[in-house]
C-alpha cells in the first residue's frame, strides 16, 4: 500500500530527528522527552511490520516504565546547569573509539545481509500475540524461562542494593 510507504517515511523522519535532538538538546529534560518520542516512532514502525504485540509492549516497557523513571531521576537531580559533568579526555577518546567500532560492525552486518525480495509485512503473522506466544512457549521455551530468571535475579539484586543501608 502506498499509504503505509508514506507512513514509513514520516515515522523514520521523526525517529531520526528525535534521536539527533537527544544528542543536541542542551537541557537533559528535553533529551529524555525526545528519546521518548523516538521510542514512539519505533513503535509505529513495529505496527507497520504487522507486529502489534511488540509495538504495544515496546510502548509499555520503554515509554511507560523506563522513560518515566528517567524523567523522575532528571527531575530530582536537577541537571539543568550546563557542563556539570566535564569528561576527561581519555573518556571522550575511548567513547569515540567504542562508538566507531559499533558503527563499523553495523555497516558490516548490513552489507553482508542482502535483501533480495521485499517481504510483504501483512503476510508475516509472527508479530501477532497468538503466534508469538506459541513460538516462545514451544520452540524457545528454555531461553524464555532462563531470561525470566535473569530478570528476577536482577530485581532481587536491585532490592538488595537499595536496602544496603539498613544492615
Amino acid at each position, binding site marked *: 500500500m502506498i499509504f503505509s510507504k508514506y507512513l514509513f517515511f514520516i515515522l523514520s523522519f521523526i525517529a531520526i530527528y528525535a534521536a539527533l535532538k537527544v544528542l543536541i538538546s542542551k537541557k537533559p*529534560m528535553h533529551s529524555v522527552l525526545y528519546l521518548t518520542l523516538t521510542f514512539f516512532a519505533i513503535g509505529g514502525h513495529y505496527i507497520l511490520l504487522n507486529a502489534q504485540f511488540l509495538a*504495544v509492549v515496546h*510502548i509499555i516497557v520503554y*515509554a511507560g516504565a523506563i522513560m*518515566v523513571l528517567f*524523567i523522575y531521576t532528571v*527531575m530530582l537531580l536537577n541537571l539543568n546547569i550546563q557542563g556539570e559533568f566535564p569528561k576527561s579526555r581519555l573518556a571522550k577518546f575511548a567513547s569515540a573509539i567504542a562508538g566507531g567500532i559499533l558503527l563499523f560492525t553495523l555497516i558490516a552486518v548490513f552489507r553482508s545481509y542482502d535483501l533480495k525480495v521485499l517481504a510483504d509485512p501483512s503476510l508475516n503473522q509472527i508479530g501477532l*500475540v497468538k503466534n508469538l506466544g506459541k513460538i516462545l512457549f514451544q520452540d524457545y521455551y528454555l531461553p524464555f524461562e532462563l531470561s525470566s530468571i535473569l530478570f528476577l535475579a536482577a530485581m532481587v539484586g536491585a532490592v538488595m542494593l537499595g536496602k544496603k543501608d539498613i544492615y
Partner: protein
Amino acid sequence: MDGTYILYKFILASAILLISLLVAMYSTLLERKVAAFFQDRLGPNRAGIFGIFQPLADGLKLFFKEEFMPGDADKFLYILGPSLTMMIALLTSAVIPWGNSLVIGGAEYSLQVADVNVGVLYVFAILSIGVYGIMIGGWASNNKYALIGAVRAASQMISYELAMSMTIIAIVMMSGSLSLKDMVEQQHGMNWNVWYQPLGFLIFLVCAFAECNRSPFDLPECETELIGGYHTEYSSMKLGFYLFAEYINMFISSAMIATLFFGGYNFPFMDDLHLSHNVITIIGSLVFFVKIAFFVFFFMWVRWTLPRFRYDQLMRLGWKSLLPLAIVNMIITGLVIMIKHHL
C-alpha cells in the same frame, strides 16, 4: 477499505469524542451537585434550571481568566503538559466497545472504533504514558510544590499500575483473548466477570481511583500540603485542561470497569426479549451508559465520603496489600483454569 467505511469510522470517532467531552462536562456539574447533596446544600442552581448551564459558565470563566506563565518556566513544556494530559485521556476510548453492531442495508457497522487484537495491552500502554502530562507540567512550572506533586503522581501511578495489570492478566487468562470485544462477547447475558473475579474487581476499583488521582488518593494535588500540587502554577484554560482531563479519565475508567467486569453492553435476559438485532444493540449501548453513570457516581460518592490517605499509607496499600493480593488472585485463577482443563 472503501470510502463509506472510512467515513463511518470518522463519524463514529468524532461522535465518541463529543460524547466523552459532553459527559466529562456534565460530570463537573454532577460532582458539585453530589457534593452539595452530601453536605446538605443546594449546589449550583443559578445558571439555567437546576444549573444545567453551569459547565458552560465555568468554561467561559476559565477562558476569560488571565493567562499566567511563571518567569523561569520552560515555555514549550509548560504548554505541552496540559495538552498532553488531555490528548492521552481521550486516546483510550478508541478500543472500548460502546455497543454491538448495527445492521443497516445488509452491511454491519460495529460500534467500536478499532477492534485491536491487543486491546487490553493498548489500554495498559495509554495508562502507563498517562503520567507524562502531569510530570512535564509539574516540572516545567519550576515550582517546588508542583515538582513534589509531579513526583508523587509518577510514583503513585507506577505503583498502582502493577496491581491493576495483574488483575487484568487474571481476566485475560479467563477469556483467552486480549481483544476487548471478545471479552465483552464472552460475558453475554448475566455471565459477568465480576461473579468470577470479585477480588480482582475490588483491586481494580481501588487502583482505578489511584490512577485517576481521585480522592482518597488525590495526593499529587493535595491542597493542604502542596497548595495545588502539579497545577499550582497553572491558570486559565490550561488549568481547565488538567481539571477536565480528570473527569474524562473518570469516565473512561468507569467504562473500562463496566467493560471488563460488568459485561459491557450485555444485559440480563437479552435473548428472551426477541427484539431485532439493532434494537438490542441500542438498548445494550444505553445499558452500558447506565453502568458507566453508576461508576462515575461511585467515584464522586467515595470522594465526598472518605478522607484523604497519607502518602506512606498510600504506598503501603499499593505495594504491600494490593500487589500481593493481585498476584494471589492471578495464581488462584491459573490453578482453577488448570483444574477445569484436566477434569
